[in-house]
């Protein structure tokens, strides 16, 4: 479905991504894991056509990355949607939440007003938010609610691929868990293809079927999640990422 071929990206002469090469099949869920500065967010921006690659290609269902003309971008965004890390800057603060969510339907579909309202309510319920909130502005929402609203907005147009860029990193632990569970249930229900970007490997079992590890802009390895804890087969760097929570774990096990 999504194919990335020999992708390079330089910013101010500094290589950010080097020789990235992978694909995502229909219905698959791939995680991209790396430290801050590993280039994982740049990769998301490249896939979203927010930046152009220095060299290399990105194809979605055989179509190349859009570079000119509104219609090609429109087609791209109908298929691919993204949820960012909660910075409170995705939703227009001057619009009501209903208007925020209605906007993509106005641009991407031919639904009339009543149908749009119906759709918005459907997805608003799906992410577990209360109908009364729709009249408020985004500023009223808590961090967890805000991420749910962004997720609903991204899913409304039924994209084929959803990219989550550090979607839960700013939430506290219990909210993280709820968000992951919500994603899993939507994944099952809609057969959504997922590209999940994170720095925390422990979030992934249960959510993603494959994991790609990035380090300093280079692809370290790509493997199936079921082989995550198979230390003999993993790259030493992946093991070091896994072990970063080990000292907490040891302390915890001594206490319980």
């Amino acid at each position, binding site marked *: 479905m999504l194919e990335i071929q020999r992708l390079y990206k330089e910013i101010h002469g500094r290589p950010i991504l080097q020789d990235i090469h992978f694909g995502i099949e229909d219905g698959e869920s791939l995680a991209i894991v790396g430290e*801050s500065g590993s280039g994982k967010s740049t990769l998301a921006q490249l896939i979203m056509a927010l930046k152009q690659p220095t060299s290399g290609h990105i194809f979605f269902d055989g179509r190349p990355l859009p570079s000119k003309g509104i219609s090609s971008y429109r087609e791209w965004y109908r298929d691919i949607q993204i949820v960012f890390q909660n910075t409170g800057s995705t939703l227009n603060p001057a619009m009501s939440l209903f208007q925020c969510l209605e906007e993509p339907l106005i641009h991407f579909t031919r639904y009339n007003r009543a149908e749009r309202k119906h759709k918005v309510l459907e997805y608003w319920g799906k992410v577990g938010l209360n109908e009364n909130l729709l009249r408020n502005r985004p500023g009223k929402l808590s961090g967890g609610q805000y991420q749910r609203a962004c997720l609903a907005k991204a899913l409304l147009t039924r994209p084929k691929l959803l990219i989550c860029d550090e979607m839960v990193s700013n939430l*506290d*632990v219990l909210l993280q868990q709820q968000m992951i569970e919500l994603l899993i249930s939507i994944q099952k229900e809609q057969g959504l293809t997922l590209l999940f970007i994170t720095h925390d490997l422990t979030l992934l079992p249960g959510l993603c079927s494959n994991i790609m590890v990035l380090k300093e802009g280079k692809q370290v390895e790509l493997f199936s999640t079921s082989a995550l*804890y198979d230390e003999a087969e993993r790259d030493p760097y992946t093991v070091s990422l896994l072990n*970063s929570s080990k000292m907490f*774990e040891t302390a*915890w096990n001594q206490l*319980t």
Partner: protein
Amino acid sequence: MTTLLEVKNLNIRNKEGQSLVHNSSFSLETGKTYALIGESGSGKTLTSKAILDMLPAHLQMSGDIVLQGEHLQQLSRKRWRSIRGGQIGAIFQHPEQALHPSIPIGRQFVDLMRSHLPVSRYEAEKQAKKMLSQVLLKDTSHVMSSYAHELSGGMNQRVMIAMALLLKPKILIADEPTSALDVKTQAEIIFLLKELILDTEMSMLFITHDLLISGYLADTIGVMREGKIIEQGSKENIISAPEHEYTQELCRHCSQRFLGKGEIPYA
């Protein structure tokens, strides 16, 4: 063991009279770490700001905060200057917001030191370099001449820790110092804090949403929810026998994080 800081019946209200922190009391022992845990909006950051007398003006505070016999609310502004930074150091979630964006790191160290102590510029610089190497920053001269935006998040946080420790405070308040960092850097910073606490006689108030980290770092844990401390005690008691439902849920969640190892639900 002596009590260093005592917070008694702290109440914080906003203008509408809504209670944001309700009757919370706890104490910090010399050389120990107290972890205050809670979800966002539970009032944990407000509590730390109240101790530093940095609450926003529209909030009203009542209660008593005592640092070694001194009632902090009654202090003059001049006295506060020497306490804040001198006796109580603080690090926050976003070091790049706490550091000055257009003054090199080194000069910020020198200014800080010279505003508290009668030392020469040369001496202050020497101390700063010593502190920076103590927080395991390698190229100290490079860091000293850099601006905050030129350093990574993890490096900035180390700079903040060095700066907070420069005047050898008795208490370090750490408000979610690692929440914006990735897991690897987080582990490094937490390890560093633990070492520093063991090396010095300093006490720490560690504010976090992560029970797992508190289990590693703290001696005493207080769980905060909706402005109230619902449970506090030694970390052994809190983690092995949590009483409150919310604490139990947190513990369950932490234990589940390692369950994946044997059997991965996805296959």
